[in-house]
C-alpha cells in the first residue's frame, strides 16, 4: 500500500520536477528556430536519463548511500574533488537560472523589473526549505507542477503535423545555421540530463529510507516519471514550432517565449505561462539548492537531512542558504535569465563525464551492489552516455563561443 503511494507520488514528483527553466528555455528556442527538427535530442536525452535516474535510485536503495557520498567513499577524495568543485559551480549557475525564471514570471505578472524580484524570491525559496519537510517540498511543488501540462494541452489543441513530429524524432542535419543547431541540440541534452537530478534523487531515496524492496518502485518512477516529464518538453517544442516559428519569432528573450500559450488559451494563456514557469522553477530551485547542500555535506561527512531540525545540521542548512543567496545575486546584478539558462544548459552537457564515469564505476561494484549491479544493457547505455558526454564536452565549448552569442 505504502509502495503504491510512493510510486504514485514518485511519478507525480518527476512529472512536476522534471520540467524546469532549462527545459522550457531550450524547448522554446528549438521550436522557434528549427520547428520540430530538434525533437530527437530530447528523446535521446530522455532515454539516457531514464537509465541514469534508475541507476541512482537503485544504488541508493541497495547501498543506503547517496551518490556524492558513495563517490567520495569508494573512489576517494582526490578523484572526487575536481568533479565536486566543477559540479558545484554548475549547480550554482543552474540555481541562478531557476531563480531568474521565478523572477521573470513575477515580472510578467507585475510589470516590475526582473532584478527587483531577486531577493524576495531568494527569501521565498529559502523559507520553503527552512520550514518545510522533505516530503512537503516534494509533494507540493510536484502537484502544482502539473500546471506545466498546459504545454501538452496547447500542443494538442494546435493539431501539430504528425508526420513532421515523427520526422523530428530522427536525427537530421540542419538546413541552416549549423552552429546554432548543434548548440541548441547540446543544450537540450544538457537540460534533460541535469546532473543535479541524480544527487537529488539518490539523496531523496536515502532521506525516504529506501531499501532493496524499492527497486521495482524505483524502476516505475524513473520510466513513467521521466517519460511524462519529457512529454511536457515535447509539448513545449511543438507549441513553439506551431505558434512562434511561422510568425518568424525566435526566442532570444523570455518575453518572446511568454507569447507561446496565448493562442491556445486566449486570455488565460499568458497567466498560465507565468504560473507554470514560476512553479516549475520554484520546484527546481529547491531541488538544486538541496542538491548542493547534499553534495557538500556528503563530501565532508557532515550531518545532513532535510527532515532534521536545523540545529542538528547547521552546516547543511547554511550551505543551501548561501547557495540561494549567492545565485540570487546574479539576477540582482542584472544577468539576463534566458542567457544564463542557455549557457548553463550547454555547460551541463559539458560536465556530464563527471557524472557518467562515476556511475559506470559504482554501478559495477560487485561488493556493493551484488546481484543488483548493472547488467549489460544498463552498462551499454552508461557507456553511450560516457562517450557521448565526452564528445559533447569537447564540442560544446566552441559552440558556447559561437552559437551562444
Amino acid at each position, binding site marked *: 500500500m505504502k509502495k503504491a503511494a510512493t510510486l504514485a507520488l514518485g511519478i507525480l514528483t518527476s512529472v512536476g520536477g522534471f520540467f524546469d527553466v532549462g527545459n522550457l528555455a531550450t524547448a522554446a528556442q528549438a521550436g522557434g528556430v528549427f520547428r520540430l527538427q530538434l525533437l530527437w535530442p530530447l528523446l535521446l536525452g530522455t532515454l539516457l536519463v531514464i537509465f541514469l535516474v534508475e541507476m541512482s535510485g537503485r544504488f541508493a536503495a541497495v547501498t543506503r548511500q547517496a551518490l556524492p557520498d558513495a563517490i567520495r567513499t*569508494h*573512489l*576517494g577524495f582526490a578523484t572526487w574533488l575536481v568533479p565536486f568543485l566543477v559540479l558545484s559551480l554548475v549547480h550554482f549557475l543552474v540555481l541562478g537560472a531557476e531563480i531568474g525564471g521565478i523572477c521573470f514570471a513575477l515580472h510578467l505578472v507585475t510589470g516590475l523589473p526582473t532584478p527587483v524580484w531577486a531577493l524576495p524570491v531568494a527569501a521565498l525559496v529559502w523559507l520553503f526549505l527552512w520550514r518545510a519537510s522533505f516530503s512537503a517540498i516534494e509533494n507540493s511543488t510536484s502537484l502544482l507542477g502539473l500546471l506545466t501540462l498546459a504545454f501538452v494541452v496547447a500542443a494538442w489543441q494546435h493539431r501539430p503535423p504528425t508526420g513532421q513530429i515523427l520526422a523530428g524524432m530522427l536525427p537530421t542535419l540542419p538546413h541552416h545555421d549549423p552552429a546554432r543547431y548543434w548548440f541548441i541540440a547540446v543544450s537540450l541534452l544538457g537540460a534533460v540530463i541535469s546532473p543535479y537530478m541524480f544527487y537529488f534523487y539518490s539523496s531523496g531515496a536515502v532521506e525516504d529510507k529506501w531499501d532493496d524492496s524499492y527497486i521495482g518502485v524505483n524502476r516505475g518512477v524513473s520510466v513513467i516519471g521521466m517519460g511524462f516529464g519529457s512529454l511536457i518538453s515535447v509539448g513545449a517544442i511543438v507549441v513553439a514550432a506551431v505558434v512562434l516559428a511561422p510568425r518568424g519569432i525566435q526566442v532570444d528573450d523570455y518575453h518572446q517565449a511568454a507569447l507561446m500559450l496565448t493562442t491556445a488559451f486566449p486570455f488565460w494563456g499568458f497567466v498560465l505561462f507565468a504560473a507554470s514557469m514560476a512553479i516549475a522553477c520554484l520546484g527546481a530551485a529547491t531541488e538544486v539548492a538541496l542538491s548542493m547542500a547534499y553534495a557538500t555535506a556528503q563530501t565532508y561527512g557532515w550531518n545532513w537531512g532535510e527532515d532534521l531540525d536545523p540545529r542538528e545540521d547547521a552546516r547543511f542548512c547554511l550551505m543551501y542558504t548561501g547557495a540561494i543567496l549567492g545565485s540570487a545575486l546574479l539576477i540582482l546584478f542584472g544577468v539576463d535569465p534566458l542567457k544564463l539558462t542557455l549557457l548553463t544548459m550547454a555547460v551541463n552537457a559539458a560536465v556530464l563525464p563527471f557524472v557518467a564515469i562515476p556511475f*559506470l*564505476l559504482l554501478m*559495477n*561494484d*560487485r*561488493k*556493493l551492489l551484488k546481484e543488483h549491479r548493472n547488467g549489460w544493457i544498463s*552498462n551499454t547505455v552508461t557507456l553511450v552516455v560516457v562517450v557521448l558526454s565526452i564528445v559533447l564536452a569537447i564540442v560544446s565549448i566552441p559552440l558556447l563561443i559561437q552559437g551562444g552569442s
Partner: protein
Amino acid sequence: MKTVHFELLLGRKVHDSEGRRVGRILEVHAEPEGKDCVVREYLLGTAALLTRLGISAERLLGLPVHREPVRVPWDQMDLSDPERPRLRCSVEELTRNK
C-alpha cells in the same frame, strides 16, 4: 613510535631492491587481530585499483583481461622512508615465493 600516514602512502611508486619500478601502492589488505587491525599485504599496480573498485575490466568493457595485482607481503615492504617505499627483495623473488 614510528608511524606512517596511509593516505599519503596511497599512490606512491614502489621500487624493488635493485631499484626497478614495481608499481604504485593502490590498496592495502588488513585483518583484525585481537583488538588491533594489522596489515597483511600491499597491492600494487592498476589491477589493484580494479580490485579496489570491485569491478573487472571484463565485466565493464567485455575485454578478457585477467591481470592480477602484485601482492607484497608486509614483511617485504620497507617503509622506513615513506616517501620512497622499497621492496626488501627483487620482483622475481616476490613472484617466486608465491
